[in-house]
């Protein structure tokens, strides 16, 4: 049904999107927590910085990543020299570029959950003898799970379609960084590629729809699992 090139692009897209979510989550929880629970100098600037990928052209993000994480960049060079890890022009690099692009979405989703959380529960846990780390894992984290999951699913779905940052930082290498949108773009550039482009577009469409349905299903399951949020504060 699918040509090898098409199924390569499909599985590569799924893998890149999944890895981008894995990169994202720990940092996004940390950043969302810092932005809601702490006050520090330069917080507003930090907040704006986190949201930059939303407003910058993806090509700019890809270019900045290339400067930082390229084999001769300050971080990329160190990674390459010390561990032999190369990010630019690899599928891991594609996942990194995708992660940076969707990072603000995940932070935002987790942050909304954190802000909606009744701080009184934290106080109650304190009076019951729980320390700060204990409270984070026993109270805060379980209660923001819906936000984390929603963020993860959104980031995954958005990650399937990341184009500009990926092609700039990781290039368009078949089987390595040619994800669905890149394959679609390539097909459009090729004579007789129309049928392939149409099939890839259909796959993207189906994936997006499935992603949204899964997100809704998960949100319902989790709401039932942790119990309805109590009204008021």
């Amino acid at each position, binding site marked *: 049904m699918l040509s090898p090139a098409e199924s390569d692009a499909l599985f590569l897209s799924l893998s890149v999107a999944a890895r981008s979510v894995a990169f994202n989550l720990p940092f996004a929880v940390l950043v969302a927590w810092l932005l809601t629970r702490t006050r520090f100098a330069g917080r507003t600037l930090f907040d704006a910085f986190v949201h930059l990928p939303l407003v910058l052209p993806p090509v700019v993000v890809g270019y900045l990543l290339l400067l930082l994480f390229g084999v001769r960049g300050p971080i990329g060079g160190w990674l390459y020299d010390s561990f032999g890890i190369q990010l630019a022009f690899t599928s891991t690099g594609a996942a990194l570029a995708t992660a940076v692009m969707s990072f603000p979405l995940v932070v935002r989703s987790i942050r909304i959950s954190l802000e909606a959380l*009744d701080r*009184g*529960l934290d*106080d*109650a*846990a*304190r*009076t*019951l*003898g*729980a*320390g700060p780390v*204990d409270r984070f894992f*026993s*109270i805060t984290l*379980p*209660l923001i799970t819906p936000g984390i999951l929603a963020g993860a699913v959104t980031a995954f779905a958005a990650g399937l379609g990341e184009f500009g940052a990926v092609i700039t930082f990781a290039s368009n290498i078949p089987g390595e960084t040619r994800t669905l949108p890149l394959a679609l773009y390539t097909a459009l550039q090729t004579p007789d590629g129309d049928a392939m482009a149409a099939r890839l577009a259909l796959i993207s469409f189906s994936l997006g729809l499935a992603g949204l349905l899964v997100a809704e299903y998960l949100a319902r399951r989790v709401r039932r*699992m*942790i*119990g*309805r*949020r*109590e009204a*008021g*504060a």
Partner: protein
Amino acid sequence: MLHIQLRKQRGDFTLDVDFVAPVPGVTALFGRSGCGKSTLIALIAGLLSPDAGRVQIGDDTLLDTSRGLEVDTRHRRVGVVFQDARLFPHLSVLGNLQYGAKRVARGNAAPIGFDDVMSLLGLGGLTARRPHELSGGEKQRVALGRALLAQPRLLLLDEPLASLDQARREELLPYFEKLRDAFAIPIVYVSHQFDEVLRLATRVVLLDAGRVHADGDIATVSRHPVLRAIVGPDAVGAVMSGVVERSDDAGLTVIRVGDAELVVDEPAPAGQRIQIQVLARDVIVAAARPSGLSVRNSVAARVVSVAPDVGRTVLVELDIGRTSVLLARITARASQELGLAPDKQVWVLIKAVSLRGHVFNAPAR
């Protein structure tokens, strides 16, 4: 002895309190909304830092700003039951109950047993439920159990009944009475409902605009002008504590208050301590002992003072012996006709059905 001395400025509101409370025993913090009760609770629990102060339970000092000592909330072992219960929504009732119990420091005594709490608060059938499946009253019972199982040395109840309707409050109050009588934990009970205070507490700290106006036994504080202003003229009434003597042949309960015997329509076992409030508007003052009336209680009394009250009424303080004092609100005209003045001997008439007694399950002192 529980000694609390705290000062905290918030905007143009200053909380500045200093009082002692018996251990064990129930001390009510009484005042209208916004008088600083909840701030005080947060300060005692350590959820808020004071500008200056000291909190001491027996020999344990939890806070002493003069020595730079401030024990963290989680090590204070001060249990709090909040007005809104604050059960953890992602945990079952059992999970909530065990939350504090699991965090009791090893080596600390755990005198409050799980089974005792479950049976005292009637939680047996609820353990598998989620907080959102509980009624308001059930939530508060679970919150109370959760606080108890963390083995507190002091229990703070912050208007635990305020978010409940009258029927639920009536349902929950007996649990607080049982709690008071079952465990030897000092309890600070915050309320702006005097009937709750009357049922549960023997000592009252009267708080208004961030200051303690009176601090003492409920009988004395119940006659305080600030308290009278808070509860309103129709709810003004002296609280007296008495001892249940016997049941009379008509099934009414005879109690001894001061030198007088009063009859109340409230079953109570002999020998128990009983706290009753006599509303000032329910008291009739007579110049001579009347006869041929339905009134069950007629008591000899001495006028202590006569003071103008709201409208065209006066408030009369009446001594019925052994420091027991009643309040009566009558019209100024009636007071003039009876010639009421300090030291005048009169008779006080109180209908048995207008008295409500609250039994404390502890032998009278």
